[in-house]
């Protein structure tokens, strides 16, 4: 009898838990259904495509109150919330001639980007790659205030508003990426495969991200899963003439009712890059392998994602020499090669993230548990005996409760932390930093309220970091340090149809890294001998940020001035001494530095020329200390302008768009001690994208980067002092097959 009741209950739950329902998307002005609209379930990273009658069927087995993004060509896309009784029923869209700016939900805060207090700039990677980039960092350096600090073409580090290294945090789907980013030659460790979008938070952001979020945060988000009930795959490849390089990716996505999976694999191989003078930059070659798997699952009260990512690089280090005096021709070759040689970096990264979101009766509880493993090996003098060989293991936790305290007040209460261990492995000839473990813990409270067009937000946070080194022959004196900090953020935004105004005050902090405290040795990758200082104290920053955005149907204008005051700023100071033929740099601290600037952007879409888009942005930065002296390694001010024409052909082989981009970098004459100035330079890039619209569509791209074969060295290039130029002209082709 009991067994029969159990079976009946199970059947009942099965039927009610997975019942089918129907929804529809309607034109609000005509009440007509909208065929082939997209209904995207934001928290589940999957969705539906409506049929020719605007209808879609769904199994009613996901949480209520989900944010749903509904969109269709010719309509303004909107974010809507499912109601408590019937989450998916009827959605309404308003016709729009053109939507210049996509409505985006900011992943970290869960709020609409236009309503967030923090100035979050969200971009789809596909938009940044209309002119394909060599790597992810090059793509996002098109965003205002974001620059790259490069060592050849294989290594790029993010720079946000002049700050980089340990002052810029990188997140991947909520997992904090740690990859020895203190090193000037340790590039950003996120591969481009499967990345759908990036959100850039500019300036101090310790409230939500903890220590080190002083310059800003790069928050990468994976591509969504396939629409429910669909399986699709693609294979794509890119060829670059400058490096005879290939970049190939296979992707498979499949989504069922409750379970969905994405899988990606990539192999990249580039030979030495060709200089504008026709020679090649010796040992600038690199290879990369990247694999990624994500599995998503949901029930009525729980959404879960399990993500694994593997990234392996072998990167040549150009500009390496032991001679006391060098000329640039020693670093050039008349022959191009991709054969393995030294010096080289071998880097392996494993990332695992378990994301959970529990939907409570009121509010949501998010739990993210992550683990990263970074192995960095540098071969400098010997092919089989490494100079540096380190393993960095990082375990992170992030738990936060979003709770509507009142109808007009939402609160977020969170705890966050990480346990990190760095270990020098056997056989390395140098221990640039000691074996060390560190433990971070933080707790924060954030309150948000909105009324009519206004939104306000305020928050506080406390953090603690403890560091303990492990005694070794290279570092016989153990060091134990503790750093505590209090941070805050508050702001106001008004989001109207024509204009959005935002003002915020935020703080951030950064504890000195062990490399800054205890470095004492040669760092071949940066051609320096580094000396630390164990008496360094915490950096603290406060930023005032204001932004005004005007948006109409054909014109968008934005202006975003900011002022950032950093206390106890740590920097690497050039000294007049040499050790083992290398210049000595010491870590020191300045009482105060000030970084101010502005970004200005214009996007014009003429009414008389529907397919034409004209965009331009200008980024300006001015940094100085108490003596009004400039800071070291500040990026050149720049403008980036583009003209894009979108074709509307119906033929089977058709051109989709044509893009011409012009970048102008102003001279950098404000330089630190022993730093040289940099002249202005300009780059022209052109590209065209086409589609062969057959049963298995084929996307084709073709273009030229650095069309004018300009000779230039960016001010932030680590090869600047030895005179190695950036790559010359590059002709690229891309092929993408979807099936």
């Amino acid at each position: 009898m009991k067994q029969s009741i159990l079976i009946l209950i199970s059947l009942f739950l099965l039927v009610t838990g997975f019942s089918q329902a129907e929804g529809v998307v309607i034109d609000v002005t005509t009440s007509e259904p909208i065929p082939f609209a997209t209904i995207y379930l934001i928290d589940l990273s999957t969705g539906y495509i409506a049929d020719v009658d605007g209808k879609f069927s769904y199994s009613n087995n996901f949480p209520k109150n989900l944010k749903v993004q509904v969109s269709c060509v010719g309509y303004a896309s909107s974010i809507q919330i499912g109601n408590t009784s019937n989450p998916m029923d009827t959605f309404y869209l308003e016709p729009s001639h053109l939507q210049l700016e996509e409505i985006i939900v900011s992943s970290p805060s869960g709020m609409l980007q236009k309503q967030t207090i923090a100035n979050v700039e969200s971009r789809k990677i596909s938009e940044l790659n209309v002119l394909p980039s060599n790597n992810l960092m090059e793509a996002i350096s098109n965003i205002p205030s974001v620059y790259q600090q490069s060592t050849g073409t294989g290594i790029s580090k993010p720079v946000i508003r002049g700050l980089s290294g340990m002052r810029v945090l990188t997140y991947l789907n909520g997992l904090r990426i740690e990859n020895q980013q203190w090193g000037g030659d340790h590039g950003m460790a996120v591969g481009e495969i499967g990345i759908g979008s990036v959100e850039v938070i500019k300036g101090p952001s310790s409230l939500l991200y903890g220590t080190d979020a002083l310059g800003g945060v790069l928050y990468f988000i994976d591509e969504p899963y396939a629409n429910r009930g669909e399986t699709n795959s693609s294979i794509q490849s890119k060829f670059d003439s400058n490096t005879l390089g290939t970049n190939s990716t296979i992707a498979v996505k499949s989504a069922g009712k409750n379970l969905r999976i994405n899988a990606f694999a990539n192999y990249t191989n580039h030979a030495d890059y060709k200089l504008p003078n026709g020679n090649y930059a010796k040992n600038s070659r690199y290879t990369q392998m990247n694999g990624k798997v994500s599995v998503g699952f949901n029930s009525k009260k729980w959404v879960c994602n399990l993500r694994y990512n593997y990234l392996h690089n072998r990167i040549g280090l150009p500009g390496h020499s032991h001679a006391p005096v060098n000329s640039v021709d020693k670093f050039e070759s008349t022959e191009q090669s991709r054969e393995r040689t030294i010096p080289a970096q071998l880097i392996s990264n494993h990332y695992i993230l378990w994301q959970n979101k529990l939907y409570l009766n009121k509010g949501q509880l998010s739990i993210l548990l992550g683990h990263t493993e970074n192995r960095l090996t540098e071969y400098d003098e010997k092919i089989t005996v490494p100079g540096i060989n380190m393993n960095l293991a990082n375990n992170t936790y992030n738990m936060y409760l979003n709770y509507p305290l009142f109808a007009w007040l939402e609160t977020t209460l969170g705890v966050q932390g990480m346990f990190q261990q760095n270990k020098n492995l056997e056989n390395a000839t140098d221990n640039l930093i000691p074996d060390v473990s560190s433990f971070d813990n933080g707790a924060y409270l954030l309150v948000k309220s909105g009324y009519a067009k206004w939104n306000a937000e305020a928050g506080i946070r406390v953090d603690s970091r403890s560091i303990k080194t492990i005694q070794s022959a290279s570092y016989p004196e153990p060091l134990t340090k503790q750093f505590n900090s209090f941070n805050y953020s508050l702001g106001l935004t008004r989001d109207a149809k024509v204009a959005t105004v935002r003002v915020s005050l935020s703080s951030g902090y950064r504890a000195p890294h062990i490399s800054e405290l205890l470095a004492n040795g040669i760092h071949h990758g940066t051609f320096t001998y580094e000396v630390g200082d164990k008496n360094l104290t915490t950096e603290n920053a406060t930023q005032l940020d204001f932004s005004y955005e005007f948006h109409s149907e054909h014109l968008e204008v934005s202006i975003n001035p900011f002022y950032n005051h950093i206390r106890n700023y740590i920097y690497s100071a050039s000294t007049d001494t040499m050790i083992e033929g290398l210049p000595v740099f010491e870590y020191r601290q300045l009482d105060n530095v000030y970084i101010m600037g502005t970004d200005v952007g214009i996007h014009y879409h003429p009414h008389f020329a529907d397919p034409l888009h004209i965009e331009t942005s200008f980024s300006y930065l001015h940094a100085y200390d108490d003596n009004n002296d400039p800071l070291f390694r500040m990026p050149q001010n720049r403008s980036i302008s583009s003209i894009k024409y979108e074709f509307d052909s119906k033929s089977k082989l058709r051109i989709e768009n044509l893009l011409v981009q012009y970048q102008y970098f102003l001279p950098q004459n404000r330089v630190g001690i022993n730093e040289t100035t940099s002249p202005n330079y300009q780059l022209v890039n052109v590209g065209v994208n086409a589609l062969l619209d057959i049963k298995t569509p084929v996307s084709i791209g073709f273009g030229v980067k650095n069309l004018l074969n300009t000779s230039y060295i960016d001010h932030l290039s680590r090869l600047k002092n030895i005179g190695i130029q950036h790559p010359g002209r590059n002709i690229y082709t891309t092929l993408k097959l979807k099936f």
Partner: protein
Amino acid sequence: MKLKLLIIGTICSIAIYSCKKEECHECHYEDANNDAIELGEKCGDDLEALERDGYTTGGVTYEVHCHEH
């Protein structure tokens, strides 16, 4: 179908352009007169042992270099 196979084949051919091989390098040491004495091409375990242990001749062990600066 043929076009699809051709495109996939082209992409795969480009993708597997570089094959992994055992690493071999020309090695040398510098004698008492700082003259470079060639030891020829060394691979795998031999290469590793030379770099780790050096090259011994006439009772003297010299550091071996197997790469070009």
